[in-house]
Structure formats: structure tokens, C-alpha cells
């Protein structure tokens, strides 16, 4: 009995120390977001004179820091990121569910099609972005939110489809077959019978697509370099430029950008690994 107590104490303590040490860089950024200008570059994890000034500037007033540059308030970029991420997430989770259902029940396209979708997840985006710049210019969607919503599925669709394949597996076939006999078409069976039963999986897939859209940097850097459609990830580069680093506001912006995705990732924690490994690890 005694040995178990000691083991519990030693192992728990070790694990928690590892965990805290591991998260120190992020904890330091949170601390810095509350530091006044005099403490910015210090290693302390607790601000001596905590302040909300950084958040106030990032969220509401914007800021001007002499030669180090100026930055506008975050609102419009937050809005851009929200619109693009929500639209992408809705579109790709629904398209992903439809495709997943056709693959799972009807073997649509055979294993080739499923493999092809899987391999899209592995493509280095930088390699095909120049043609996509040309494409969006041709369609008049360069530098618009619409252009980003058009291109983001390249990143999110493989994840949502493969996740939905796993989620739809647990929907029983029998009700579908009964509905088919009653004369429903494949499409009617899908949206009247399958989708309601897989709503939890669909919500999780939507969150996955949201996480990936929110974090996307390279695509908007090249497809939406202007102010009109610039999302948060590209905006964040404002705080670190050739004149130096705006420590406090940068840290505050980093925290603001990270909090929504950390929360969402925690909400789908149970499925996160399954989604990221395309269903290989359950």
C-alpha cells in the first residue's frame, strides 16, 4: 500500500512538472499580454504591475508606437476570420458528410476516390498557390472573403470527409433500407434520416474545419494580402516588423487569436486525434 502512495506522488508530481514546463512559453505570452511597456521583454511569468492597456489597444483603439509602427484595432480582422471560418466550416462539413455517405454506403468512386481525398490532406499548399491566385483573379475573387471561402476547402474538406466516414459508420443501416423501400431517393435518405442521426459527428467535423480555417496563414497571405479580407493570422504579423516587436500588443493579440481555438479543440478533445490521423487512431 505504502509503495503505491509513493509511486502516485512521484509520478503525478513528475508529470505535472513536465506539463507546466512544457506550457511555460505560452504562459509567458499570457503574462506578457498583461505587462506594461517597461516589463515587456522580461522573463517574469507574473507581471509586477498588471495592466489591461495592451488588450484595450488591440481590441478598441489600435495603437501608434513611434518608429516601431502602428496597428489598427483587431475588430475587422476578427470579423474576416469569423466569416471565412464559419462559412468554410459549414460548407465543408456538409459537403464532407455527403461525400462520406456516398463513399461509405455506395462505394462511390471506389477506393481510388477515397485515397485521392486523403492525399489532398498531404499536399504542400505553397506548390499550388500561384495557379490559385490566377484562378481567383480570373473569377474576380482575389482579395475577397469569397476567394478564401472558395480555396479553404482544399485544406478542410479531406479532414471533414474522413471524419464523417467514421461518424456515419455508427448510423444503423436498417432505417435507411426501410426508407429506401418506401421510395425515398438517396438524397432524401441522406438528409432526412442519416444526417439527423449523425448530427453530433457533423458538429465535430464543423469544428475541425473551423480550427483549420482559423489557423490558415499561407493561403490568405497570398490570396488576400489587402485589408479587405485579411484574417487574424496575417494581421498578427503587424506586431512584428522590420522596426521591431510590439511585445505587449503582440502577446495580447496572440492570446485573443488562440483562445477560441483552444476552447474548441478542448470541446472535441475526444475526437481530435481521430480527426487528425484521418480515422487511423481511434
Amino acid at each position, binding site marked *: 500500500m505504502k509503495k503505491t502512495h509513493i*509511486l502516485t506522488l512521484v509520478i503525478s508530481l513528475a508529470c505535472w512538472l513536465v*506539463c507546466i514546463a512544457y506550457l511555460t512559453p505560452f504562459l509567458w505570452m499570457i503574462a506578457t499580454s498583461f505587462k506594461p511597456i517597461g516589463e515587456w521583454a522580461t522573463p517574469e511569468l507574473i507581471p509586477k504591475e498588471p495592466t489591461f492597456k495592451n488588450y484595450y489597444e488591440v481590441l478598441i483603439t489600435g495603437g501608434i508606437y513611434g518608429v516601431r509602427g502602428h496597428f489598427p484595432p483587431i475588430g475587422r480582422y476578427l470579423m474576416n476570420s469569423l466569416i471565412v471560418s464559419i462559412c468554410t466550416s459549414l460548407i465543408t462539413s456538409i459537403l464532407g458528410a455527403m461525400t462520406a455517405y456516398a463513399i461509405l454506403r455506395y462505394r462511390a468512386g471506389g477506393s481510388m476516390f477515397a485515397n485521392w481525398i486523403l492525399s489532398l490532406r498531404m499536399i*504542400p499548399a505553397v506548390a499550388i498557390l500561384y495557379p490559385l491566385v490566377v484562378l481567383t483573379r480570373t473569377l474576380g475573387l482575389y482579395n475577397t472573403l469569397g476567394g478564401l471561402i472558395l480555396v479553404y476547402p*482544399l485544406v478542410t474538406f479531406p479532414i471533414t470527409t474522413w471524419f464523417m466516414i467514421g461518424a456515419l459508420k455508427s448510423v444503423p443501416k436498417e432505417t435507411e433500407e426501410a426508407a429506401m423501400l418506401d421510395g425515398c431517393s438517396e438524397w432524401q435518405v441522406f438528409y432526412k434520416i442519416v444526417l439527423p442521426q449523425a448530427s453530433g459527428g457533423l458538429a465535430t467535423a464543423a469544428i475541425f474545419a473551423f480550427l483549420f480555417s482559423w489557423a490558415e496563414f499561407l493561403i490568405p497571405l497570398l490570396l488576400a494580402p489587402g485589408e479587405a479580407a485579411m484574417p487574424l493570422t496575417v494581421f498578427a504579423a503587424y506586431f512584428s516588423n522590420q522596426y521591431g516587436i510590439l511585445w505587449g500588443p503582440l502577446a495580447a493579440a496572440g492570446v485573443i487569436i488562440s483562445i477560441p481555438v483552444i476552447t*474548441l479543440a478542448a470541446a472535441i478533445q475526444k475526437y481530435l486525434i481521430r480527426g*487528425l490521423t484521418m480515422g487511423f487512431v481511434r
Partner: protein
Amino acid sequence: MRRGVLALILPALTLLLLLTIYPTIYLYMMMFQSFNPLIDFAPKFTGLDNFVTFANDPEAWYAIGIMFLLTTITVPVAVGLGILLAIIFTSRYLQGKILIRSLMLIPMSIPAVIVGLNWKMIFFTYGPLNAFLQSIGLPPQPWLSAPLGDPFKVIFVLAILDIWQWTPFVMLAVASGIESVPSDIREAASLDGASGWSVLRHITLPMAKTVIMVIALLRLIDSLRIFDIIYMLTFGGPGNITTTLPFYIYKVGFTLTAAKANIGYAALLSVILLAMAITLVLMTLMRLFKVERIIWG
């Protein structure tokens, strides 16, 4: 195929074909042309000139080499460290297992750009890390230009970021691999007198082997795409020391700041990068990742 089924996949298929076939054709046509928007009015056909340029471009070969160097540092370290953490974090003596795992999700949920900016502050010459080093009596380092006197070591600084962000992913995946080994197998072995270590070595880890392989391959393929942290931390510098192939494509084809800046040449480099990624996927991952069994099995 039945019409109803076709209707289910048609919207997605149209969108994906537009987003992949068009770029592919464009790249194949562009790689035989020369076009630098800063100099030329229009692209002109130059045959195999870009291939000759590539063969004689030490920067491109360096970029490929440095991309694989970064991979050979990050993947083994992240996988090894991840397995180690998975072993201690699945211990039945650990209190607060669920909470600790949610906390370990944080690095991989943060957008890579923010990870890059976060560590850029930490590694800044007059930043917290050097201040900390000085306070314990160690010399400060110019981390982002030449740590320990050798600019080449900046690669390791970049590797640290990627390892920091993705080790928890390996840890969580391997942990679920370990936990999928039925506990009665493990218990039976320990009743037979096997020590905890040999149960781990001879039963648990071999059974989690495929999971570990797939995770390592996913990391390998993902690490060919590292871009955001290079953009934020070093912008390919100092000089071109951290210019990996994806970043070189960015400099040649987008910012047009490389000596060989040319959209046709960037197209050729893109085709090369795509070929490498696809070869890796087909030769390694697809062997383990049995689509037939995962979907319809």
C-alpha cells in the same frame, strides 16, 4: 453510378477538381515558360531552360537539403519524446490524467503563426530567454542569427518550435494506441511475473507499433510543409540558411526576391515538391493506411 449517389458527390467533386486540376495543368504549362513580372510583359516559352536552371541552382539543392534536414531533426525527436511522454502520461499512478491531457492539447491548437510569434519574442536577442540565461550566469545567444557562433544552428531553433507544437500530438495518439491494448493482456503478463518495463517493451509497444509508424509518417509528410514558423521567425534567413524548398518557392515565385525569381521556375520547383510529397505518401503511408479496411472493413 446511380444518379442519386452522383448528386451526393458532385458538388464536392466539382469544387475539388477546380482547385486541383486547374493548378496542376497550370503548373505543367508554366514550368516550360519564363516569366518574371518585374521584367517581362508576358510569359515566353523557353522549353527545358527551367530544368537546366534547376540543375545548376545550388540554392534550390540547398533548400531541398535543408528541408530534409529539418525533417530528420523534428520527426525522430517529436516521435521519441512523444512516446516517452505517452508512457508516463498513461501511468495508472498519474492523478488528474484528463486535465493534464487537455492542457497538453494547447500547443497543437494554437495557430502555427502565433507559435512562431510567441517563440520569436522568447528567442529575441534582448528577450526573456537571454535575460534568464544572464540571470543564472550564462552568456546570452543571438538565437535567430547565430546561436553559439554558428548561423547554421538556427535550424535547431526552428526545429524546437515544430517539436514543441507537435510532440503532444504524438503523445496523445500513442497514448490512445497504448490504451487500446486490452488491459487483461497486460495484467495477465504482470501476473506471470513480467515487470512493468518488460510488459511495456514486449507487449504494449509492439502492439502500438502500427499507430506509431502512421503517426511518424504523418509528421514526416507534414514537416515538408513547414512554412508559417519560418516566415515568422527567420524569413528564410540569416542569408538563406533557413530557406527550405517551400520557402524558396515563396521567394522565387511570390515575393520575387530570390536571385532566380521567376514564376516559370517556381512552377518547376512546385512540381518537384509535389512529386516528393506524393511519392512519400504512396510509398510509405498508403502501405499502412489500408483505405479498404478503414472504410468498409
